[in-house]
């Protein structure tokens, strides 16, 4: 049996929840303080109005209504208009500064009556109650309040609204909430986390349970962006229905195309690994230049070098990036990795791609991005990015910097080598007291490729790939040995 759901309109949430929130039910959103519970609730209502014309009631027991209005405006949601039209109704249960004492028994029937009044009057489909913890801090009689919250849940059920109730947690991994309310709100639970790991904050969302209904398991990273609020980055992204293309595109270097059995596959991801100065950016420049062939478009995300540096270097290899940009074939975006989190970078890349619609994207270098995230976060970023690029049928070239000049591998590679389709290694080789450059296609999914390790040189025309190293062994491990020929 699958319960009917209503689309929330929160980017990617409807994907990981397999269609949104269970209709006519109440979902508990639990999280530590600062985990964006209130924002999630507010966004759920705002999207309801903006996208589906469904009115909503926002109950606040914690933040003052005016503070919430202010926050909402900062996301460009026209709360004033919505309130005027009666589509957004606040129910203010926030603590007031009047003194109040308790003598004898009581219940929260006034709240229930107000809630019902607000829902019927506005014909609300969506209700958010923020938060249980602050109800308890205003009314400390645990037993009474638990009973009252149960009645509130029944009221919501009777009125058939699809509701969110938020609850505080004390730790990121532990009990769902500290109020024992799960017993009657237990059908649907979502957990928001804001974990500090190795000095880096990482926000995630997890659908813990949706009774009688499908959803994607596990934690999904999300980020909060001005103008968009919560944006979830689904790791299972768009389903694995990417068509595998047999169309080939040029790497921009004829000899390399030959080594790859006729060029890269159009929807493949190519990883270029090498030490600093080994020719990675050169390969990227060639890859960009390769778009000339079919008048395609390329996006270059540069995380290491400035625009001026890049353009100058390209000129040194006989390529005119300025002209390419003028012709609208190239877009160069230079950003310092540190300016934002990996999740933000991902959303940023996604937006540029949707806007510019490139056929190719080059990221130079991926290693620079590892500086801003944890290993796990980085891996998730790569998974999300590659599945996005494949979905859009974009050829991607990523570079990774190895820490050692000769041989060696890097964390970046370890994390992503299984995800990429093609791996090209650029290595320095010391032969007979001379540093030479080598290039080899280590892996090429679904195609025959040249297994030789070849010499290459760099001149004013760019990359010149030559003959294989003969009689030398151990190049990739960084200890080349000349084998005696008989």
């Amino acid at each position, binding site marked *: 049996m699958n319960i009917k759901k209503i689309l929330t309109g929160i980017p990617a949430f409807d994907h990981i929840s397999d269609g949104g929130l269970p209709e006519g039910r109440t979902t508990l959103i639990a999280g530590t303080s600062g985990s964006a519970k209130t924002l999630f609730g507010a966004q759920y209502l705002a999207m309801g109005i903006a996208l589906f014309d469904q009115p909503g009631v926002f109950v606040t027991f914690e933040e003052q209504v005016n503070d919430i209005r202010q926050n909402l405006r900062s996301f460009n949601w026209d709360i004033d208009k919505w309130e005027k039209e009666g589509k957004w109704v606040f129910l203010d249960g926030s603590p007031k500064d009047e003194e109040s004492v*308790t*003598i*004898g028994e009581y219940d929260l*029937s*006034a709240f229930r009556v107000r809630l019902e009044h607000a829902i019927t009057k506005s014909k609300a489909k969506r209700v958010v109650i923020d938060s249980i913890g602050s109800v308890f801090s205003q009314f400390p009689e645990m037993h009474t309040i638990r009973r009252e919250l149960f009645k509130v849940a029944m009221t919501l059920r009777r009125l058939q609204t699809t509701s969110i109730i938020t609850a505080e947690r004390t730790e990121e991994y532990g009990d769902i909430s500290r109020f024992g309310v799960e017993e009657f709100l237990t059908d649907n639970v979502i957990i928001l986390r804001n974990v500090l790991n190795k000095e880096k904050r990482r926000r995630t969302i997890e659908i813990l349970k949706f009774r009688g209904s499908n959803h994607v398991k596990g934690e999904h990273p999300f980020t909060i962006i001005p103008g968009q609020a919560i944006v979830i980055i689904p790791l299972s992204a768009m389903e694995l229905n990417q068509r595998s293309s047999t169309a080939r595109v040029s790497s921009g270097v004829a000899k390399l195309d030959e080594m790859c059995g006729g060029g890269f596959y159009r929807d493949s991801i190519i990883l270029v690994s090498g030490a600093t100065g080994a020719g990675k950016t050169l390969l990227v420049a060639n890859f960009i230049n390769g778009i000339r062939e079919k008048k395609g478009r390329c996006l270059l995300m540069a995380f290491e070098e400035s625009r001026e540096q890049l353009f100058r270097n390209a000129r040194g290899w006989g390529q005119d990036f300025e002209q390419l940009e003028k012709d609208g074939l190239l877009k160069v975006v230079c950003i310092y990795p540190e300016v934002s989190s990996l999740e933000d970078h991902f959303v940023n890349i996604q937006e540029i791609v949707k806007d510019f619609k490139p056929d190719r994207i080059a990221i130079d270098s991926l290693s620079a991005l590892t500086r801003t995230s944890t290993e796990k976060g980085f891996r998730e970023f790569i998974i999300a990015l590659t599945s996005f690029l494949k979905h859009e049928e974009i050829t991607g070239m990523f570079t990774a910097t190895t820490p050692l000049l000769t041989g060696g591998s890097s964390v970046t590679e370890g994390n992503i080598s299984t995800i990429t389709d093609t791996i090209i290694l650029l290595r320095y080789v010391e032969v007979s007291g001379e540093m030479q450059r080598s290039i080899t296609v280590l892996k090429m999914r679904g195609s025959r490729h040249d297994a030789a390790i070849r010499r290459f040189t760099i001149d004013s025309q760019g990359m010149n790939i030559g003959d294989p190293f003969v009689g030398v062994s151990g190049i990739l491990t960084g200890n080349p040995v000349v084998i005696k020929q008989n």
Partner: protein
Amino acid sequence: MNKYVLQLFINGNSLTSMEAVEMLQAICKENLKGNCELEIVDIQVEPQRAEEAGILAIPTLVRKWPLPETRIIGALSVKTRVLTGLGIASDKS
């Protein structure tokens, strides 16, 4: 005049509501000697009044005058405490 102005929010005939009404009427009569203006608001009849006053719990007693405005939540089951809460000198008799 120092007349007490009180507002009591109740929910129909619920037990705690009835208890609070009785207690308050007794206080008006015995302790304030009628020197009080008591309004009883039934939220079933006038839900918007609860909204305007920001009432959550039932029963809730609001002392509008003398200032500052104060609120007492509950069935008002302990008379001495209600008197203290309202700032009325209790009858020693």
